[in-house]
């Protein structure tokens, strides 16, 4: 059985350091298995957040050899025997302990997003939607809220001051999903521009690169939102038309 040296961050908000653990690794193991083995045999109090261990709940986000990933979906055979592997908490959020961070920012932002306002149903009381009209939104609904996109986003990773008026990629896809939802009637333009701060995104696509669900965050959500903002707020023709014609959606 090959053995690996795992360099795991141990510490809390006051500080900490990487500690080495030597662990035997069996075929098929993922980083989260190795962390669990360290807990069971060497460091019972090693703090880690996890639930499903199948890439579906988005709890076990970490920075592995500096790269933001889900620990449960990172196979150990990705690494060469003999090379140490570092496991650190996601740096975009305040530390609680060891690999666990305070992600409450995301829950605050979630609550600020104006929710779905649904149009009246068909006469039979139900709704009709065509598959091709919901394909794009279903892509956004794949989000498992691992917050890796929030973690790598340059706008907030090293700029605490931007957190107030920037929702981050996760909530930009949430907003895009609501915007493109066939049954929604609410115009969130002002919110998207001012509160979610879509203009701050400079399209480096780091969020898209780390998304474990392979959602095209930048291309399919953020760029369309930016284009709509440009139309709504900066295109004089659209601006004039809006003065005279009712918009598709009701203003938030």
């Amino acid at each position, binding site marked *: 059985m090959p053995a690996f040296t795992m360099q795991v961050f141990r510490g809390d908000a006051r500080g900490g350091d990487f500690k080495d653990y030597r662990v035997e690794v069996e075929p098929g193991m993922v980083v989260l*298995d190795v962390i669990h083995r360290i807990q069971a045999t060497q460091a019972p109090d090693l703090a880690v957040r996890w639930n499903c261990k199948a890439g579906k709940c988005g709890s076990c986000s970490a920075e592995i050899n500096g790269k933001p990933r889900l620990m449960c979906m990172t196979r150990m055979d990705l690494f060469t025997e003999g090379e140490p592997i570092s496991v650190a908490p996601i740096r975009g959020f305040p530390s609680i302990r060891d690999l666990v961070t305070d992600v409450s920012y995301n829950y605050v932002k979630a609550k600020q997003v104006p929710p779905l306002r649904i149009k009246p149903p068909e006469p039979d009381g139900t709704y009709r939607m065509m598959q091709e009209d919901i394909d794009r939104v*279903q892509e956004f609904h794949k989000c498992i809220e691992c917050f890796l996109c929030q973690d790598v986003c340059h706008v907030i990773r090293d700029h605490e001051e931007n957190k107030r008026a920037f929702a981050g990629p996760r909530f930009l896809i949430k907003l895009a999903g609501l915007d493109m939802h066939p049954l929604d009637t609410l115009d969130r333009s002002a919110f998207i521009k001012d509160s979610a701060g879509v203009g701050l995104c400079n399209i480096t696509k780091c969020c898209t690169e780390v998304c474990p669900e392979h959602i095209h965050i930048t291309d399919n959500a953020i760029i369309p939102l930016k284009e709509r903002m440009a139309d709504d707020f900066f295109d004089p023709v659209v601006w004039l038309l809006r003065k005279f014609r009712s918009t598709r959606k009701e203003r938030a």
Partner: protein
Amino acid sequence: MANHDYETHEHDVIVIGAGGAGLRAAIEAAAQGVSVGLVCKSLLGKAHTVMAEGGIAAALGNVWPEDNWQVHFRDTMRGGKMLNNWRMAQLHAQEAPERVLELERWGALFDRTKDGRILQRDFGGHRYARLAHVGDRTGLEMIRTLQYHGIHQGIDVYMECTITRLLRDGERVCGAIGYWRETGRVVVFKAKAVVLATGGIGKAWKVTSNSWEYTGDGHSLALWAGADLIDMEFVQFHPTGMVWPPSVRGILVTEGVRGDGGTLKNSEGKRFMFNYIPDFFKGETADNEEEADRWYADKKNNRRTPDLLPRDEVARAINAEVKAGRGSPHGGVFLDICTRRPADYIKKRLPSMYHQFKELAGVDITQEPMEVGPTCHYVMGGVRVEADTTQSTVRGLFAAGEVAGGMHGSNRLGGNSLSDLLVFGRRAGLHAALYAKDFGGTLTVDSGQVEQASRAMLAPFERTGGENPYAIQSDLQETMQTLVGIIRNERELQEALKRLERLKERARKVHVDGHRQYNPGWHTALDLESLLTVAECSAIAALERKESRGGHTRDDHPYTDDTWGKVNVVLRLRDGRIQVSREPLPEMPNDLKALFQERK
């Protein structure tokens, strides 16, 4: 006075557990205008519901207009081998369609039919294609929809908070006590009504599809507070979990694979399920491959493929094939969809399965068969509740979802869990709120109970010389896996109970290092108490029921026995001991009985 020392939150209703049932309960209680607290063991939106794959069973009749609640009710009762609480099964079948449409009104986007309605897929034990779904990530859609609807309803959400005891004022429940994971501090919730929505007990087994959270907390909290548990012998082993590599053993492979055309094969390449059709299902199951394959498209003139028999039947069949030496290289059987459906179709219908096998096992399911075997998945047993209100035998204590017993009888059909969460989650929230509104008196939190619970939580830090909790947990899982598994007998169950006594003894001495802040060793030590309690309940009930039915198979009592079909095994804690009794099932009214006489 009790609570000066402890952080205390007061609500009309507190809901413990924030999966589908807990969220739906909290939303409904809030809609009744009462103050609601929602306590989650993990972060909001991470509960086990997120892992549900195949779909929500509801007789919408979008794909097969012949479908209706009576057919769904009949399928559910037959799937549970008639041991279900008939009234729960009836309410479930009647209300599931409205609950699904309600999710759509809250923003859920299910896959569509050609005419723009909610598409429905085939699943085991369901006569018609009945499961509303989103590819194979239906649970994710459901929990996100409830979560994003719920956060705007004025509910107070307490995340990463574990409840260790319910509090009682006389005969009533008056709240709960637990700890914050982040700080390790004790927290008290005072409430007129408590809804348990804590899910299941699957972490007591070694090979399981369940996460660390599933330690039977709600089952134990209810038992300790004096409530009855029923049907604890019935544990569902899902027939298809991953078996290779070892570290992913147990991870779920959705029944949707078979619903969408996949078949089970043994090492000889034979579709062995044709050899395992029980008499009970002969009339409705195809006995040859041609008919089975025609059934997907033409349900009127063909009978259902045996690959989609209820889960208990399929799990036993796989177990038997492996025992007979016809298993796959890693001790499972083959699940083949690659030779039966085009790659594009597989990727569109089963994207998570494609991803999961590719990433974790290095298997491309559009090119090769999967290796699968049974994995502990669900407990049918749980808190005994009144069907209409979900109230337990303790006043003010309600239960919904997996923690409640009765709805699924001895075996749950796939897809009936998500609908159960919504139907009975809503009912629990409604009736807990009505109960809280009606309650005119005052409740007093007894400082003795608070102090006792608080001391018990901190005890593992104070002991010296005891064991590491992970070792005890692992031995417990090994015991349940080998002695209280798919096939049971008296000798092994007796042995299991003996070993559980020794494990309880070890757990009483468990020792934890470090401090209280986010300490998983401590959390594991505290979870051991509920895990051992539900393990014991399950073994006691399994020893009591001397027949085989649904998710309880005894090789020393291999047949289904009609006299056992009339009783539930009931467990209750009296004077510190678990008492076991057999109590009659509620009698089904004649108009519903007639549904089973029409077509046999």
